[in-house]
């Protein structure tokens, strides 16, 4: 039986999952039974990755084991390092990540996705980005430090020095918050690829490509650029009303699923207030104004602030350049992508929807000589 065309597959259930649930009505995000607010403050990225991969929080021994395994998998293969060095230094870091993850995961025969392969892949994301960032600055790569956690080591490899505990904690919370989010477009891409019995690297490379799209991973500069143009909190109302008359979109607002405030945005907002007061003063005023204007225009629509808006302030406080915002999103989401691939392949069926043909009815082709 074939139904009617559903644009964007909105409302169509494409998979069953026990990894995360986006409860848009109530503004809740649940990872394997835990609401995000209960995980964000106290859990390390490693603990949450364990939760997503194995279905439960680790014991001390399990956490130590996973931490060691991740730390031992951070180095790039010689082929991956050589590919990274073959790319022009002005390459979009998302393209670097896509290409080098592809190499890091090459195989000599097709392998079924496993947790060790997931660990191996996820561990390499920060190394790829940090090495490329250093290369762009004309600096040598910094070898990973096995005694540092995922977040701390990423910052260490970027900057060649340890960051303050507060900054490490902020990045860790960001990585926990973004690690999974239901059947979003990149996760769905990873599952479609997994459904053909392809390998893990193929799924990840596809997901990175999907995350690159501005409608998903965000136009990295968009939120920042708009805030820069607005300039000051005092200028917000005037600038934004004016912008609206010229149909300018407010960056960082709207989501297909949440009908109330995104719980991740709430946590990130509080972090911004602490870590990036200058950003916060402007951003919170812009948010207030944007929500008011959007509500006036479409009172029927839930105009919630999305996760991208305050992510920008947190990542800026951490010291990341804005081109590294989307690939740092990928550092986090790698945990969710791999968990979904494992779940898909454990109970697999080829994802092959139908299309509706809207072309002409069959007719005969003319031979080349007779075509006008």
């Amino acid at each position: 039986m074939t139904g009617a065309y559903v644009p964007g597959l909105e409302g169509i259930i494409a998979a069953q999952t026990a990894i995360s649930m986006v409860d848009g009505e109530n503004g809740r995000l649940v990872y394997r039974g835990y609401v995000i607010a209960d995980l964000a403050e106290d859990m390390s990225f490693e603990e949450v990755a364990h939760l997503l991969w194995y279905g439960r929080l680790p014991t001390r021994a399990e956490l130590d084991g996973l931490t060691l395994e991740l730390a031992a998998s951070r180095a790039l293969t010689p082929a991956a390092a050589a590919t990274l060095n073959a790319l022009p230094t002005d390459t979009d870091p998302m393209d670097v990540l896509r290409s080098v993850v592809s190499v890091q995961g090459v195989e000599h025969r097709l392998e079924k996705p496993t947790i060790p392969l997931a660990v191996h892949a996820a561990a390499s994301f920060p190394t790829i980005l940090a090495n490329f960032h250093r290369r762009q600055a004309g600096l040598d790569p910094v070898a990973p430090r096995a005694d540092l956690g995922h977040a701390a080591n990423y910052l260490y490899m970027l900057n060649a020095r340890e960051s303050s505990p507060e900054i490490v904690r902020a990045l860790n919370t960001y990585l926990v918050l973004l690690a999974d989010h239901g059947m979003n477009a990149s996760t769905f891409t990873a599952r479609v690829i997994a459904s053909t019995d392809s390998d893990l690297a193929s799924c990840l490379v596809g997901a990175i490509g999907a995350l690159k799209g501005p409608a998903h991973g965000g136009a990295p500069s968009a939120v920042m650029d708009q805030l820069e143009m607005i300039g000051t909190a005092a200028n917000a109302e005037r600038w934004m009303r004016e912008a609206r008359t010229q149909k300018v979109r407010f960056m960082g607002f709207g989501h297909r699923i949440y009908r109330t405030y995104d719980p991740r945005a709430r946590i990130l907002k509080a972090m911004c207030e602490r870590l990036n007061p200058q950003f916060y003063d402007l951003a919170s005023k812009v948010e207030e104004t944007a929500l008011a204007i959007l509500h006036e225009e479409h009172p029927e629509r839930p105009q919630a602030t999305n996760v991208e808006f305050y992510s920008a302030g947190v990542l800026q406080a951490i010291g990341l350049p804005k081109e590294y915002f989307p690939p740092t999103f990928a550092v986090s989401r790698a945990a969710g992508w791999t968990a979904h691939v494992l779940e898909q392949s454990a109970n697999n069926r080829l994802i092959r929807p139908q299309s509706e043909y809207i072309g002409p009815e069959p007719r005969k082709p003319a031979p080349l000589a007779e075509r006008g």
Partner: protein
Amino acid sequence: MTEFSPGLEGVVAAETAVSEVDGANGRLIYRGGYLIEDVAAVASYEEIVHLLLQGDLPNSRQLDALRRQMAEARTLNDAGLGAIMALDPDTDPMDTLRTVVSAQGATRSITKPTLDEAIALTSIFPTIVAAAHRRRLGKEIVEPRPDLDHAANLLWMMEGTEPPAERASWVGHYLVLLADHGLNASTFAARVIASTGSDLTSSVVGAIGALKGAAHGGATLAARSMLDKIGSADNAEKWLKDAHARHERFAGFGHRVYRTYDPRAKSLREMAKTAAPQLHKTAARTEELALQILHEAHPERPNATNVDFWASVVLTGAGIPKEMFTCIFATSRVAGWTAHVLESLSDLRIIRPASRWVGPEGGKQALPLAGR
């Protein structure tokens, strides 16, 4: 919210004029309304590229222009070449293709997919595939020849000698037949990635990843491997009966969409008589018996021979080593992938389905590490 349809079977995920698989009647219609058997009789691969990307078959002037454009786009850039040289020569050639396409298409900032880019991508596939093949053999990479058409140049770059016209025509015919096929898993992956506003390279890289899967592009190799095990027409009966008793699946049979004989399989079966007479005998006997066994076991199922079965025979006759089958499939299908992405741009909407939650309810208490 609707019901969960595993594998999105029967769900219409896109409207398309690029191609239509009419499974009930065993028809494949290419853009413009041409039945595959009609268009394959008059058109070269380059004409099909024009048809799929631009909406109709070219006249001689348009075809000449396209041939020139394609011949000029056969050279790897530094990043693409750097990536290919970075990889171990014995890397899975689909991983090489995935990586080199990614590196070749790496850019400074994101760009909207264009027709020229689609043509360039289609043109570069044989260069990458042939280079991967040469490196596997420990041989030097062969430079492309602008005076040869797409299929002949592919064989030239793989073998380093000009191929006989007959072999080039078998490859060309194969490329025509496989260039598009409705919303198959890899094409769907490409469209999902494009739906986020991502770039053409990302879509194509994701599609390569999906095609790599054993349940999709890998099926041609599986069919050939089965024929290798069977060895001869005389051995077919014993082998198939034994395999059936072991509950082994017969490679090259069954398709989710076709309810009658796949028209591409019909065309390839005919060609196989000349292209690979010896293997054709084994394959024909295998097909006859396999269909009989499958029909006895499942009289309610259509159990038709699929395209992979006869493609494996024709590609063998054309001199393509079986490790390269999936890459040659990709070399054909890239025209369809890029055509679908370009088509989707006219009404871009993020493809973001829903999922059904089958995990624990939210609100589980997260115990601190020490308490677990």
